[in-house]
């Protein structure tokens, strides 16, 4: 909840904050020879094999450049990595973005469990579901507890009604 609240604030003021940020640029992390298995010719399978060998399995996209290099974008929460495999020279280049707090918060906020390919991603997805359910449960249990307190009932109901009317007004006027 803390991460969602903080990231909501930064995302809501993204235009302003972005003007004070440097663009994320990739920096060299590792360069090494790499010889893939003969079976891994299809880009998707090759990408999975490379990520597995680098112990970096997780959310990614893969594309083949015109010069036949395979480029894997690995979307981590702390860093984004660009892994380029030169099939001809059999060289693997790993680059990553430097840590930026605002980008990190936004990634945490946007990350879901949809399309999970690792158990950790599945766990993240389950926690996202748990947060969603918890929010509804907090409201329901909070409302039940509120009804037990006579002294705040009128003011609480008035605030709930006011908030609901404003919310409905937004939907109506949009």
């Amino acid at each position, binding site marked *: 909840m803390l991460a969602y609240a903080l990231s*909501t604030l930064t995302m809501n*003021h993204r235009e302003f904050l972005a003007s004070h940020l440097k663009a994320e640029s990739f920096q060299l992390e590792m360069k090494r020879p790499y010889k893939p298995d003969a079976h891994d010719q299809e880009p998707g399978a090759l990408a999975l094999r490379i990520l597995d060998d680098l112990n970096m399995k997780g959310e990614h996209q893969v594309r083949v450049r015109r010069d036949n290099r395979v480029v894997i974008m690995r979307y981590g929460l702390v860093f984004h990595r660009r892994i380029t495999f030169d099939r001809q020279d059999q060289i693997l280049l790993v680059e990553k973005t430097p840590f930026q707090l605002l980008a990190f918060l936004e990634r945490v906020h946007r990350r879901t469990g949809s399309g999970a390919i690792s158990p950790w991603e599945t766990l993240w997805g389950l926690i996202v579901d748990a947060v969603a359910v918890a929010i509804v449960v907090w409201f329901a249990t909070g409302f039940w507890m509120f009804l037990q307190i006579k002294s705040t009932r009128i003011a609480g109901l008035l605030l709930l009604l006011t908030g609901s009317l404003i919310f409905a007004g937004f*939907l109506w*006027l*949009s």
Partner: protein
Amino acid sequence: MQLQTIIRRTHLYLAMFLAPWFVMYGLTSIAFNHPALFTDNSSEPVWIFRARESYSFPINENSELREVAAAILKDKNIEGSFHVQRPDRNTLIVTRFDFFHRTRLTFKIDQKTLLIEDRKVQLQNILTGMHGRGGFQQDVWLHDLWAVFVDLVAVAILVWIATGIFLWLQISSIRKWGGIVLVAGFLTFLVLVITL
């Protein structure tokens, strides 16, 4: 009024006032985590043709896209919140949106035509659109006011956490277990952040 009473009241009244947003954010996040549940897989086109007409508007390489898009929307009498993009030098795409509807205007600058399409109403788009709405980049007062409420909800969550921890610490019988669960939550978050 005692400090504890003030904290209790703040915790409660903020929740009562912002409950619709809080519940909306909780429910709509399911649509992001399970998009397949809400996606209509029919073969019907997503964008439905409304009109195609001759249209011209002076645009050059240095034109400010949002200003051009706002002028086109005003010209068509459909002003409001919008996104704009220029995928190539001869195409300008303006998407006018509200909570329930989306209208896309594709202006072919060289051909001087304007294609107007409406997006098929889909639950997935309504839910994710409502959840993702925010920011102060639109020159629409209602949009800005919504963004103020987005800020308010975010600050309220921080206040709930702080006041909730304060209230929890007053109850000695659940202090230990609450502490264990809190630490476990932070550790799980940390492990996932490093691993993902």
